[in-house]
C-alpha cells in the first residue's frame, strides 16, 4: 500500500536520516572560518582549465613574432601542414575575414584612437610575441614541433619602446595615426592660484616600471562545439564579460555560447581580458568541429599576458611652510603598449581620482596622455591605477616633509581628513563615506615601535654605519567596489558595475547560491556561505556557492577591482532577504497568523508570543510539495537580486616599513613591516588577513624586485621566472597586520573590499624607507625596482656627502614643461629610458 506523499512525513524521514541539519547559534559573519575551497585544492582534485581532457581533443600552439615591429610579407604554412600529427595550420590571413578586432571597452575620450587589433597579425606585427600563425595537432609536442616549419618573411620596421621618444616628432609610428592614443584631463579648484606664490613647491618625476602580473597558473583555453552551441573554458576572471565580448567579436550568438571559468589559479587583473587565444580557440573549433586546447608556457606568458603599470608620473605639490598642501598637479604619460585591450586606457584614469590621497587641498589638476609603443599592451594589474597614484603622492609628501624638516607622519596629520569630517567630498569630486586615518595610523605606529626605530636610525647615522636604517610610511585610501554604474558611465566605461545573485533553497533545506562574481583565490565560496548562513539561519555547511559558468550563473560582472564582496556579497545578502520574505509569507499561511506577527530567529519563523513555528527548512520542503500554499504563491523558496551601490567604497590604512640598507653592497633587507588596514566590517578575518599579506608581497615586489625589461629593439629580456624576479619566501619578512574597523555607510554590511589594499600601500612604504635610509648620502630618490645594483649605484653617485639638510626651496618652485593643451611632446625631466635597456637580473 502506498502512502500518500506528505511534506511532514518526508521532513521526518529526512530528519531521521540526518539530512535536515539545524542551525548553530554562532554568528558566521565575522568568524575566521577555514575555507571550503581548500578541500579540493590541498588534495589536487582541482579543475584547472589545462586539466580538462575532451574526446578527440586537439592542441593549439602559436607562432609568435620574434620582432617588435615588422611588416609581414609572406607566411608559408605548407611545410608545417605535412608534419606528423598536424591537423591544420593557420596564418592571420586565414582568419582575416572572421577574427574581428580584440575589444577595448573603455574609450576614455571622444577622440581616442583605438587601432584595429586582430587576434593574429595579418599585415604587421607591433610587439614581440604577437601571434602570427598557429598549428593544430594531435598532441602539444607535435604542435610545438610544427611551428618550426612555418616560414614567415618579415620586413623589419623600427621599434619604439620609450614613451618620451614615441611622442617626439619623427619617431617611428606604431600606428599610422601616430603614437598618441588620447589626452584625458581632469581638474578641481583653481590650480594656478594654488601654485601662485606658493611658499613651497615639490616637483618630482617617478617611473612606474612595467610589471608582469605572473599569476601562478598560466592562461589556458579549451574550446569545443557540438555544431550548434559553443563552450569555452578559460582561465579567466571575467566569464560573463568575456561571453558578451566574444559573441560580439566572433559572431557566435550569445545564447549559444557558454563560458566556463573553472578553478582559476590567480589573476591579479591579468585574466581580466579578452585574449587573442580565446577568440582563436573558438574560431578553430568552429572550423574543425573538434575540441581544442591551448596552454600557455611561462615564457609565452611573460611576452603576451598584458602587463601592468608602466607610467611616467610628474607630480607637483604646492604647500604652505607649515606643511599644509594647497594643491597637486599631475602630468602623466601612460604606456598603452601596441594596442588598447579591454580596459587599457581606463587604468590611469582610475588612478586620476587618487592622486590627492587622503589629503585635503584646494586644487587639483590631472592630465594623462596615453602613448603607443611597440610593446605588449598594458591593462589592469592589482590595484589598477591606484597603486601608481598612491605611490606618487606618498613619495612626494615625504619629499615635502623632508624639504620642510617635519616628520613625515606629522605632515600627513596636518593634511589628512579627520575622522569628524566624514563624509568628505574631495577635490576630485568623490565622497569618502567613512574613515579614521588617525586610529589606523596610531595603531600602526604603536605596533611598529616608531620612536624606538627612529632612535636607532639616529644612532646609525651618527656612527655612519654602512648599514643604514630607513623608515617608510604610506597612508592611503582607494576607491573600490566598482559600481556605481552611472558613475562608470560618466567615465565612458563600457559596462555597468552592478552584481547579481540567486539564492535557492533546495527541498531538503540546503541552499545553493549563484553568484555573478568569479573568484580565483579570494574564497567567495566561504565568505558567501557565511553571509547566507547568518541571513537565512542555516548551517554554514548547508550552503554551496556556484560560480564561473555562464549557463549556471547567467549574469554577472565578475571579479576585479575589489568589487566582489562590496557589490556581489551584497547581492547575495539581498537575495537572501527576498527568500526570507517569501518564507515569512508561507510561514504565516501555515501557522495561520499574520505575517506581521511572525518573528525570525535562528532559522525559524515563529508566531510572536506562542510556541509554534516553522524552520526555514520545513518551509522549503513545503514549497516543494506545494500541497498547501497561499493563493498566488509560486512554489520554491528562491530569489534573484541585483545590487548597484550608489557610491564606491574607500578602504584605507597606514603601512610602515623598516628597512636595513647596506650602502656598501646596495642590499636592502626589510626588518619589519606593519600594516593596519581599515576595510570596514569584516566577513572573514582569515581571508582578509590573507589578502593583505599577498597584496603587501606584490607591492614589495614592485619596490624591490620586479621589472619587465625590453631592449631598445623591443626584445623582451625578462621572458622567464629566472629573469623576472618574483620574490620567494626567503626574500620577504613576516608581516605584522592589524585592523581598525570603520564600517562603510554605502552598503548594508559596511564592507569596503580588501584585495588591492596591500599592494597599493606597500610600494611607497618600502621606497620611502629606502630613500629615508639614504638621505644622509644626499639621495632623494631611487628608481624602482630598488635592486642592490641600483641602490649601490645611487649611493656611489651621490658620493659620501654628509647630511646636507633640506635643500633651498628655490630649486624646486618652477614648474617646467606642459601643463595645458596636452602638449606632452615637450616633456621635460627624466625619461623612462633609464633601466629599460638593462638591469633585469639582479636580486
Amino acid at each position: 500500500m502506498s502512502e500518500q506523499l506528505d511534506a511532514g512525513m518526508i521532513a521526518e524521514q529526512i530528519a531521521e536520516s540526518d539530512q535536515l541539519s539545524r542551525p548553530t547559534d554562532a554568528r558566521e559573519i565575522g568568524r575566521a572560518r577555514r575555507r571550503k575551497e581548500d578541500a579540493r585544492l590541498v588534495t589536487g582534485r582541482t579543475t584547472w582549465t589545462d586539466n580538462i581532457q575532451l574526446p578527440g581533443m586537439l592542441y593549439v600552439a602559436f607562432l609568435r613574432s620574434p620582432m617588435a615591429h615588422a611588416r609581414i610579407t609572406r607566411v608559408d604554412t605548407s611545410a608545417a601542414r605535412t608534419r606528423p600529427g598536424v591537423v591544420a595550420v593557420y596564418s592571420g590571413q586565414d582568419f582575416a575575414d572572421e577574427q574581428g578586432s580584440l575589444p577595448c571597452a573603455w574609450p576614455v575620450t571622444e577622440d581616442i584612437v583605438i587601432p584595429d587589433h586582430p587576434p593574429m597579425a595579418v599585415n604587421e606585427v607591433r610587439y614581440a610575441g604577437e601571434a602570427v600563425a598557429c598549428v593544430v595537432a594531435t598532441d602539444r609536442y607535435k604542435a610545438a614541433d610544427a611551428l618550426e616549419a612555418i616560414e614567415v618573411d618579415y620586413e623589419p620596421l623600427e621599434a619604439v619602446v620609450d614613451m618620451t621618444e614615441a611622442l617626439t616628432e619623427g619617431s617611428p609610428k606604431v600606428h599610422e595615426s601616430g603614437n598618441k592614443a588620447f589626452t584625458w584631463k581632469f581638474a578641481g579648484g583653481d590650480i594656478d592660484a594654488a601654485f601662485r606664490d606658493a611658499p613651497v613647491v615639490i616637483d618630482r618625476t617617478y617611473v612606474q616600471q612595467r610589471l608582469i602580473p605572473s599569476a601562478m597558473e598560466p592562461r589556458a583555453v579549451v574550446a569545443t562545439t557540438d555544431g550548434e552551441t559553443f563552450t569555452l573554458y578559460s582561465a579567466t576572471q571575467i566569464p560573463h564579460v568575456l561571453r558578451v565580448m566574444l559573441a560580439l567579436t566572433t559572431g557566435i550568438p550569445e545564447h549559444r555560447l557558454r563560458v566556463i571559468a573553472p578553478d582559476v589559479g590567480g589573476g591579479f587583473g591579468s585574466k581580466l581580458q579578452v585574449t587573442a587565444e580565446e577568440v582563436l580557440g573558438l574560431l578553430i573549433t568552429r572550423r574543425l568541429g573538434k575540441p581544442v586546447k591551448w596552454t600557455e608556457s611561462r615564457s609565452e606568458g611573460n611576452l603576451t599576458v598584458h602587463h601592468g603599470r608602466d607610467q611616467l608620473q610628474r607630480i607637483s605639490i604646492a604647500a604652505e611652510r607649515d606643511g599644509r598642501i594647497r594643491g597637486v598637479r599631475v602630468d602623466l604619460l601612460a604606456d598603452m603598449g601596441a594596442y588598447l585591450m579591454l580596459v587599457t586606457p581606463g587604468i590611469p584614469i582610475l588612478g586620476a581620482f587618487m592622486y590627492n590621497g587622503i589629503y585635503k587641498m584646494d586644487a587639483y589638476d590631472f592630465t594623462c596622455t596615453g602613448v603607443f609603443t611597440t610593446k605588449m599592451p598594458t591593462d589592469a594589474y592589482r590595484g589598477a591605477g591606484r597603486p601608481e597614484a598612491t605611490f606618487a603622492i606618498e613619495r612626494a609628501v615625504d619629499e615635502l616633509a623632508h624639504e620642510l624638516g617635519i616628520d613625515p607622519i606629522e605632515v600627513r596629520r596636518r593634511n589628512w581628513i579627520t575622522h569628524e569630517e566624514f563624509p568628505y567630498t574631495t577635490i576630485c569630486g568623490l565622497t569618502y563615506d567613512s574613515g579614521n586615518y588617525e586610529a589606523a595610523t596610531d595603531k600602526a605606529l604603536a605596533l611598529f615601535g616608531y620612536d624606538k626605530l627612529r632612535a636607532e636610525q639616529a644612532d646609525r647615522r651618527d656612527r655612519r654605519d654602512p648599514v643604514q636604517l630607513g623608515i617608510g610610511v604610506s597612508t592611503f585610501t582607494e576607491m573600490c567596489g566598482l559600481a556605481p554604474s552611472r558613475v562608470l558611465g560618466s567615465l565612458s566605461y563600457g559596462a555597468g558595475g552592478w552584481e547579481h545573485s540567486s539564492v535557492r533553497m533546495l527541498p531538503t533545506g540546503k541552499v545553493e547560491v549563484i553568484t555573478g562574481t568569479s573568484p580565483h583565490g579570494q574564497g567567495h565560496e566561504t565568505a558567501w556561505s557565511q553571509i547566507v548562513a547568518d541571513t537565512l539561519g542555516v548551517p554554514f555547511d548547508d550552503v554551496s556557492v556556484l560560480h564561473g559558468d555562464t549557463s549556471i550563473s547567467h549574469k554577472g560582472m565578475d571579479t576585479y577591482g575589489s568589487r566582489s564582496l562590496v557589490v556581489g556579497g551584497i547581492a547575495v545578502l539581498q537575495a537572501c532577504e527576498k527568500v526570507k520574505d517569501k518564507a515569512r509569507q508561507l510561514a504565516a499561511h501555515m501557522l495561520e497568523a499574520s505575517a506581521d506577527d511572525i518573528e525570525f530567529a535562528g532559522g525559524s519563523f515563529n508566531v510572536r508570543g506562542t510556541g509554534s513555528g516553522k524552520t526555514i527548512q520545513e518551509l522549503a520542503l513545503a514549497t516543494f510539495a506545494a500541497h498547501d500554499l497561499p493563493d498566488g504563491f509560486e512554489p520554491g523558496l528562491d530569489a534573484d537580486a541585483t545590487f548597484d551601490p550608489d557610491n564606491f567604497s574607500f578602504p584605507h590604512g597606514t603601512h610602515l616599513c623598516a628597512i636595513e640598507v647596506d650602502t656598501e653592497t646596495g642590499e636592502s633587507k626589510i626588518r619589519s613591516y606593519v600594516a593596519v588596514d581599515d576595510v570596514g566590517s569584516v566577513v572573514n578575518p582569515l581571508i582578509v588577513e590573507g589578502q593583505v599579506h599577498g597584496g603587501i608581497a606584490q607591492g614589495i615586489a614592485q619596490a624591490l624586485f620586479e621589472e619587465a625589461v625590453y631592449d631598445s629593439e623591443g626584445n623582451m629580456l625578462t621572458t622567464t621566472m629566472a629573469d623576472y624576479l618574483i620574490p620567494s619566501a626567503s626574500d620577504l619578512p613576516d608581516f605584522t597586520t592589524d585592523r581598525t574597523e570603520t564600517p562603510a555607510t554605502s552598503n548594508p554590511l559596511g564592507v569596503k573590499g580588501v584585495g588591492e589594499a596591500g599592494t597599493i600601500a606597500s610600494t611607497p612604504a618600502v621606497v620611502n624607507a629606502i630613500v629615508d635610509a639614504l638621505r644622509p648620502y644626499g639621495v632623494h630618490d631611487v628608481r624602482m625596482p630598488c635592486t642592490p645594483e641600483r641602490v649601490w649605484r645611487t649611493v656611489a653617485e651621490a658620493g659620501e656627502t654628509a647630511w646636507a639638510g633640506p635643500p633651498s626651496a628655490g630649486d624646486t618652485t618652477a614648474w617646467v614643461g606642459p601643463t595645458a593643451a596636452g602638449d606632452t611632446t615637450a616633456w621635460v625631466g627624466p625619461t623612462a629610458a633609464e633601466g629599460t635597456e638593462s638591469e633585469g637580473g639582479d636580486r
Partner: protein
Amino acid sequence: MPRITITVDGITYQEDVEPRLLLVHLLRDRLGKTGTPIGCDTGNCGACTVMLDGVSVKSCSVLAVQSDESDVVTIEGLARGNEWHPMQKAFHEEHALQCGYCTPGMIMAAIDLLRDDPDPSEETVREGLEGNLCRCTGYCNIVRAVRRGAREMSQRSAGERAEQEVPTP
C-alpha cells in the same frame, strides 16, 4: 620508443614514452594525475613538485625516461583514504593558500624539507621553500603551516612508533 615502468601513488604503470617527454606531462596527460600543475617552463616556480623515490623533484625538469623503475608520490597520493596528510591539514588550518595553484608543489617541498630538519625555524622554512613561488599569500601563512605540519608530523610519527612498540597481547 622506450618503455618505462613507473609506480605512481601506489599503482604501477608500463608506458611507452618519447625520450623527450617530461615527467609532468606523463603524469598529467597520460596518467590523469592532474593534481600536479605546471607554473613555468624553467624549473623556477616549483608548482609541479612531486616525490620521486622519496625526494622532492620538479617534475617539469625530469624526463619521464629518467623515472623508469621509480616510485612517484603526487599530491593525490598523499592522503590516506579520506584522511589528509598533516601537512595538507596544516595548510588548510593556517589559510596557507588562496588560488591554490602552487599548493601541491608547496606541500611536497614542505614535507621534503622536514627530512633534514623535523622542527625547522622560520628562517629554515623560508630558505627551504625558496624554489617554490606563491603569488597569493605573501608566504606568512605558508611558513606557519609548514611549522605546524612539522609539529603534527612528529607527533604522528611518535604516535606510530608508540603504537608499534606496544607489545601484542
